[in-house]
């Protein structure tokens, strides 16, 4: 079994993430899409590590992606909550102003 | 000891930091601190005088300081002292010390006042000690900043006008000097000697020609005109003199003293240190003009002074008149004349400072300076009866200012006349009118203020207090000592002046 199945899976994850990011108007839903895209990227890292060279660096990158995703989720969701407090909405199109 | 000049220059600057560290409410601490700083500086100038080698004609090698500053443009931090700058340094040290004492009664933002004052002192020392033209220029410009604020914040009713006028007028002149110094820099090859005042000296630009607006000009003459205007504004020479009465009238007492006592000398010092030695051909070429302008200064200043009813304005015009004598002495280009001019610079510094300080003492009691008020009534009357000590000190300063023998002003004026008579006989004869009128306006002022019945507004004044006597006493002693025996100052300057005169004589 080669690398291709992994790439196909990660591509599907990626494209699903993109679809979510474009089709949804809910900010939290868009965050879900972003998580999907990040996962796709992490998967690719690990997969390429496995099949192209035996360096462990890919794993480390995957770890950092997870880490960054977690941080991003925390901050992003905090922003969403603040946004919701201010606008009483989590519609992406209502985020048109930097100032509250 | 070798770094004495550095210490003299930077002690006031360090004093500024000290002033800024003291809390602004602690007025007396700030005053005492400033007094201490200026006293130490003055003591160091005295030390410099004691260590000075009177027999050496040029710069005193022992004290020279030279470090590279901006090496790309061959600018050096280089200081030095010779017989022409030493009297000025002494004068600066003395006057700043006394002015701090006389500023004791300043109550308006004390901290910044004294900080600016110390900054002024540092920059003035810088001008008198700098041997690098660029450094000279920098200090010359830095000096404007504290002056601008000192006049503009602590001055009289019309202070902003006077401060802005002073600043713009002087600055306009400085720009011309800047052009001159850059021109000299490139004309001399933009090498490591091109900003060195000493290396530029000796008439190296006599035959250079520059093309400007399609015409050929003599380089030296062109640069000399620029520098002449720059220094003439500072002296001030007619017709660049009108900033002086404004600045003097509006400035607080101590600033007037510094302005008249030290800053005006920077102009004539500029002639002696820069314009004349670097461009001797042009100086000789223009000496008739300088002499006539000096004559106009003498007479015009004296006549205008006679018409003034404001004491400070009167003394301001008398400064114009007295600086005219200095210019006459410079134009003479003889041993007596130039020595007399340098001595007159020193003596005018002390005597006119006394006059301004005396006006300040009176102003603290009366809060006006009218000899005759605008409505025609007397501003003062019978002060002699009311303030006996004050009157005696006033008499000494007045007669010193008009050049009574036995007081310092006389010797310098006599030397100037001796120097100039052979060269410009007619001018000498006419300049004596200035001497005559010079006595007239001072004595007339004295008569109107001090004689006669005590007028009611004067009745409440008290005589000079201990602090006021303390800061007048050194000046009185200086004036009398130098009047009786001027050799202490003349001895230090004569060799340097002699070499300058010899240099100029080569081009006559």
């Amino acid at each position, binding site marked *: 079994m080669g690398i291709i199945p992994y790439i196909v899976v990660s591509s599907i994850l990626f494209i699903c993430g993109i679809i979510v990011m474009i089709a949804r*108007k809910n900010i939290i839903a868009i965050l879900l899409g972003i998580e999907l895209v990040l996962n796709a990227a992490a998967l690719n890292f690990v997969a390429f590590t496995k099949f192209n060279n035996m360096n462990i660096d890919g794993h480390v990158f995957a770890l950092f992606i997870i880490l960054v995703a977690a941080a991003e989720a925390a901050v992003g969701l905090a922003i969403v909550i603040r946004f919701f407090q201010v606008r009483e909405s989590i519609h992406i199109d209502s985020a048109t102003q930097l100032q509250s | 000891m070798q770094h004495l000049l550095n210490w003299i220059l930077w002690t006031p600057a360090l004093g500024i930091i000290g002033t800024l560290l003291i809390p602004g409410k602690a007025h007396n601490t700030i005053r005492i601190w400033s007094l201490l700083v200026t006293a130490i500086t003055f003591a160091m100038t005295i030390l410099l005088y004691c260590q000075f080698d009177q027999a050496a004609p040029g710069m005193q090698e022992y004290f020279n300081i030279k470090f590279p500053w901006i090496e790309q443009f061959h600018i050096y931090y280089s200081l030095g002292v010779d017989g022409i700058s030493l009297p000025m340094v002494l004068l600066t040290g003395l006057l700043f010390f006394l002015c701090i004492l006389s500023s004791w009664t300043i109550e308006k933002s004390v901290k910044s006042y004294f900080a600016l004052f110390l900054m002024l002192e540092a920059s003035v020392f810088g001008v008198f000690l700098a041997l690098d033209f660029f450094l000279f220029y920098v200090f010359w410009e830095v000096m404007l900043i504290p002056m601008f604020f000192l006049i503009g914040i602590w001055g009289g009713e019309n202070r902003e006008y006077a401060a802005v006028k002073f600043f713009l007028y002087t600055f306009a002149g400085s720009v011309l000097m800047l052009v001159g110094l850059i021109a000299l820099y490139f004309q001399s090859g933009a090498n490591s000697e091109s900003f060195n005042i000493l290396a530029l000296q000796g008439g190296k630009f006599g035959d250079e020609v520059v093309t400007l607006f399609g015409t050929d000009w003599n380089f030296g003459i062109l640069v000399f005109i620029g520098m002449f205007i720059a220094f003439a504004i500072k002296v001030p020479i007619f017709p660049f003199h009108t900033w002086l009465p404004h600045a003097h009238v509006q400035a607080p007492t101590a600033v007037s003293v510094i302005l008249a006592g030290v800053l005006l000398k920077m102009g004539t010092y500029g002639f002696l240190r820069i314009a004349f030695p670097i461009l001797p051909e042009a100086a000789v070429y223009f000496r008739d003009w300088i002499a006539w302008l000096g004559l106009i200064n003498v007479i015009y200043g004296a*006549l205008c002074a006679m*018409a003034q009813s404001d004491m400070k304005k009167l003394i301001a015009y008398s400064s114009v008149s007295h600086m005219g004598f200095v210019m006459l002495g410079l134009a003479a280009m003889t041993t007596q004349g130039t020595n007399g001019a340098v001595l007159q610079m020193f003596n005018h510094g002390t005597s006119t400072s006394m006059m301004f300080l005396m006006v300040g003492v009176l102003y603290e009691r009366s809060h006006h300076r009218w000899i005759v008020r605008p409505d025609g009534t007397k501003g003062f009357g*019978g002060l002699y009866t009311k303030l006996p000590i004050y009157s005696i000190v006033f008499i000494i300063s007045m007669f010193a200012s008009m050049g009574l023998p036995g007081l310092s002003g006389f010797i310098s004026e006599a030397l100037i006349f*001796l120097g100039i008579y052979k060269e410009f006989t007619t001018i000498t004869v006419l300049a004596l009118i200035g001497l005559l009128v010079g006595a007239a306006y001072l*004595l007339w002022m004295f008569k109107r203020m*001090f004689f006669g019945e005590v007028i009611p507004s004067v009745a409440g004044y008290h005589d000079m207090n201990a602090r006021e006597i303390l800061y007048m006493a050194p000046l009185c002693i200086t004036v009398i000592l130098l009047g009786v025996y001027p050799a202490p100052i003349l001895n230090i300057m*004569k060799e340097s002046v002699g*070499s300058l005169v010899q240099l100029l004589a080569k081009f006559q």
Partner: protein
Amino acid sequence: MEYSISTILPIMLLPFFAFVLNAFIVKKFTKTAVAISCVAIFIPFIMAMRIFIDFVFNKYSSDYYIHKTFTWFDLSAGAQIFKVQMGIYLDNMSAVMLLMVTGVAFLIHLFSTYYMHDDPRYGRFFVYLSLFTSAMLGLVLSDNLFSVFIFWELMGFCSYSLIGFYYEKEGAGNASLKAFMTTRVGDVFFLLGIVALWTTIGSVSYVEIYKAIAESSLSSPVILFGLGIPLATFAGFCIFMGTIGKSAQFPLQVWLPDAMFGPTPCSALIHAATMVAAGVYLSLRMYPLMDAGGLLEFIAYIGGITALGAATIALVQTDIKAVLAYSTISQLGYMVLGIGVGAYSASLMHLITHAVFKACLFLSAGSVIHALHDHHTHAPVQEMPRMGGLRKKLPYTFIAMLFCTLAISGIPLFSAFVSKDRILGDALVMAAHSPIYIVPAILGFCGAFLTPFYMFRMIFLTFYGEPRDQELYKHAHDEHFSYNRNLPLLILAVFTLGFWYSGSLTGQGIVKVFPESKYEWFQVLVEKPVLNKFLGRTATPLEVSESKEFIEHSHYDPNHGIASEEEAHHVHLIHRFGAAASFLIALCGILLAYSMYITRKFSPEWWTTTFAQWTKALKNRYYFDHLYIDILIQKLLHPFNNLLAWIDMGFYDRYAVDGWERVLALSYSVARWFDNIVIDSVLVDGSGISVRFFNIVLRTIQNGKIQFYFLVLLFVLASYVLAFKPVI
């Protein structure tokens, strides 16, 4: 006696040290200060006496002199040599002057302890007196014009301070200002003369000047305003202008009468005996220069005009001190006339005799004034019309004043007959030689007629007749002999006798009482400087002991300077005639005064009404004050100054200097217009409009929707990848 620095200089330095010391202690220790002042003038008097005896009677010849110098300061640097030398020059003339100055000054100090005793500023008066005495002695000892000038100005300062001594009075201020400024006019010329000589000769010591004249190296012309004037004329004129100012000669005589605002002893010392005479002393010293410059006629005319003019003004004065002031001016005029006609020793003699009798007159006037106090105002009275009959109240003063009046009138046996008449005689001789001198001689003789008249008018009005103000007379204090009031007067009065100065009754040696030449010491010892002896002489420095030089006493030769026997006879004849004429004229004057004020045969009122215009002119002092103050200063100088000051501040500064602001403002507005229209509207706003146009296009894209941006981003990325197929 060896003369060195320690024996000569204390004469001048003792009063000076007294001045310095007193200036500090006078407030607390007034009595000590006064005592110090008096002692500090008495010791120099003793020393001067010694010098006088040595020089005049002992061993030195008539043209012996001591000249020692020291360097005050030195400006030599490299090749340029310039030294300012100060020094001492002592000869017979200095010795005589020294004695006179110290003597008179001591007596006046003594009198002042009486006169000023109740004054609140008793001590300060002595401080000024000490400084003045020191300056005057310094002037006499000076060896060069420069130090003469220094002391000259210092005396001017003392004079200024003492005239303004009663500074509560407005008039004192005016008078002191006037005195200082008027003399300053002369001083400025004097300084110019010094400068001219110094730059030519290289020194201004008397010896060097005499030497230069002897070598006749002063002929080089001074180029002034394009005119060439011989240096000797120019310098001589300038120095003589100094004399005119200081000695109150025409036309600068206006200050001296006003100077009487000062205390009377100071008038006696400064404005009668010493300072005003210093001008004459200077002219005598510079006589060879004036001679070389051909100024003698001019000097004679000035002297003659002053002598007569001042005497006429004195006729109408009612203030006792004013009469004396004008008489001083008149007598100074005689001295100057003496210089002009070449009566060198007579002029100096008149200076000395005048100093003695005029000091005495002033002190007597002070004694009179002090005795009279207005009952209501408590002010001292100086107006003669309120006096009269004081002879009985003030006997000693009367005697002293009478002696002096006789002396000044030129009565034989008294001093002025010897001195003044010698001047007049020489004037006649000169008039006989050249007609240009006729006018000065006539002026002199007219003055000689008026002098006894106005002096005796003063005596008669003051001491004779009935008291015109009975109340004043009643309150006048009787005079009791006191050492410090009457002794100085009487001593001075004794020295108004002629035999102290001359062995003969007249100056010309006509009636020889003491035929021996020794007693004609004045004429023997004081003579015009013999220039040739200065050729090749240099001064001995003070530190080195001088090489004494004894020249044989050149015995008095009445004919010296006159070539032939016949001419000498001629001169004698004229002298004899002059002496007789002046004696007669003086007698006439006295008689006229007697008949006008004692017997009242002629009424003074008749004269004043008949010559009303003249009287008015005299009372107004020939309108000189009017001319100087009202016209020259008030109408010309002040308006000119005000105009100048207005031009400076109101015009030049306002328009020419601050006008740059307007020029700049104009250029600003042009620049602003250019900026607004061209730059801003067209270029800037135009680009704005173009931006707005694109804005319409772009803002549809820039809709703020993040997903739209994301889409665009993806599309662009995708199309880029698809289009270019980047190599990975």
